[in-house]
């Protein structure tokens, strides 16, 4: 179990975190969600004993990160946003080194490395030099080093950063595979990724927990209404849009690029104030149209923006308005020199 009480971290005069209090139970997969600079990485670094908090207490499995950091380190596996890999070592050499650093008994090292390689599906590159691996495999090696000593807690900072769509799906499966044996904390600003993987979300804003709960709870509280995408065949764009707009509860209907190729295929994005899925289907079928697909879009991003109260967004937008078109001024411009 992780207990964080009144945690503060200052960098000079700037408050990065605080006050932050939260408890994380055994076996949970927690998603730490927040905008860039919200304090996610600082929180995770404190949990991994890479940073010391300014004040407050952080206990991991009953051990305090300041009073007994080595006990915490032995229980935590940490993947920073940039995997800490030695490019001159092979995958197995590196994992053996990481296991020995984490006090794995000499007799168990080979077995632990083999287990980590199997779980992270690194078998085909196990003898390869890390410097020659692709980004996706490097992320996997990063996760493998975080779990090679079978820690109770696994802390993953932006594990899907820079991965392609296939690698993202693989990484999601990998994180899910950690469920049960480990308590996992994953940070990301890609909201849908966390909703796919995590049991509970912690939304962090300006160093504080702005909200905590399951995706369903988040949806219930902030996600009134529904976002749908419907694809039909056999009608004109105008006809489909008119039919959908006529359904009670539909607030907005917007034609969009068809979700699949073919003649007479129309896709409409629908915003509604209530669950209108059955009503929309019924209307379309009554008009003798073929409903090919109806997908409920998770408007998690929108919900989190609502949750954050829009203050941070407005602050950022305000900052952008002050900047000239095409981004912030260049050094030459800001120095008053002709460009």
């Amino acid at each position, binding site marked *: 179990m992780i207990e964080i009480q009144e945690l503060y971290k200052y960098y000079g005069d700037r408050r990065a975190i605080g006050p932050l209090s939260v408890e994380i139970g055994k076996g949970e997969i927690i998603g730490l969600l927040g905008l860039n600079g919200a304090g996610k990485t600082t929180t995770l670094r404190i949990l991994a004993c890479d940073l*010391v908090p300014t004040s407050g207490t952080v206990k991991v499995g009953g051990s305090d990160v300041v009073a007994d950091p*080595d006990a915490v380190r*032995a229980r*935590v596996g*940490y993947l920073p946003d940039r995997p800490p890999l*030695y490019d001159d070592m092979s995958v197995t050499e590196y994992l053996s080194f990481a296991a020995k*650093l984490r006090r794995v008994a000499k007799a168990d090292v080979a077995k632990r490395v083999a287990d980590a390689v199997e779980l992270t599906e690194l078998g085909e590159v196990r003898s390869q030099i890390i410097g020659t691996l692709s980004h996706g495999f490097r992320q996997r090696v990063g996760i493998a080093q975080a779990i090679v000593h079978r820690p109770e807690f696994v802390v993953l900072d932006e594990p899907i950063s820079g991965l392609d769509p296939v690698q993202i799906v693989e990484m999601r499966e990998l994180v899910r595979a950690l469920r049960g044996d480990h308590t996992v904390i994953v940070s990301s600003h890609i909201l849908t990724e966390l909703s796919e993987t995590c049991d509970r979300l912690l939304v962090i804003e300006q160093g504080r927990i702005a909200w905590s709960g399951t995706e369903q709870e988040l949806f219930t509280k902030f996600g009134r209404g529904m976002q749908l995408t419907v694809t039909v065949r056999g009608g004109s764009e105008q006809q489909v849009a008119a039919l959908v707009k006529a359904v009670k509860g539909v607030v907005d209907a917007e034609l969009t690029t068809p979700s699949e190729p073919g003649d007479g295929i129309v896709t409409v994005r629908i915003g509604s104030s209530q669950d209108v899925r059955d009503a929309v289907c019924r209307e379309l079928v009554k008009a003798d149209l073929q409903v090919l697909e109806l997908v409920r879009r998770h408007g998690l991003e929108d919900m989190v923006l609502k949750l954050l109260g829009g203050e941070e967004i407005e602050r950022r937008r305000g900052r952008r308005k002050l900047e000239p078109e095409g981004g912030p001024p260049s050094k030459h411009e800001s120095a008053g020199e002709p460009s």
Partner: protein
Amino acid sequence: MSRVLLIARRELFAYLRSPLGTVILAAALLVDGIYFYALGLSEKLVSADVLREFFYGASGSTMIASLFLSMRLFAEERQTGTLVLLNTSPIKDWEIVAGKFLSAFAVIGALTLLTAYMPALIFVNGKVSIGHILVGYAGLLLLASAAIAIGIFGSALARSQVVAIIISAVILVSFLALWKVARAADPPLNRFLSALALHHDNFRPFMLGRLEFGRVAYYVAMTYFFLLASTKVLEARRWR
């Protein structure tokens, strides 16, 4: 201790796999060889003087090699982000520092061993005592350990290896130049500064084959001080 050796093995491995270790060893050996060859050809020096001058020349190349070997030890880890692995493992900061020191010292030990043929040549063709050779080498290793510790300290302070070696070189040269400053100072400050100088008064006895406890203690203390300072730098970074 096992984790100190684990870190030391990892760093030795890095020296062997990268061209850095080989290039530094080769360059130092080349400089030592040329210097010794020039001395050996000189007819004005007797065997003991050749040996003394050899240790004098070797001390310079050893100090420079020590700085170049140690500049990467922390700066590179910080640059590539691998220091996080060490920082978040259940290992003490002093164990990390000691492991890295041991690896660089082992490479310098190899360098020293590879120069052994030069005094051996004097031994074969001239008349020098084995004790003189052994004491001279002990001095070289002690001087190297102090230079490595200074290099590690510079590396712990910097993110870039270039900055690291500049910091280390400034510290090293400052300690080398203290004997010169001592000449301009009044007693008792001059004796204090002279005793602190990295080379002059402290290394000369080793060059002459005299083993003095005070000089040994000086180099051990210098090594300890800079390794301790490096450990404190690592600790302080967690609190920033």
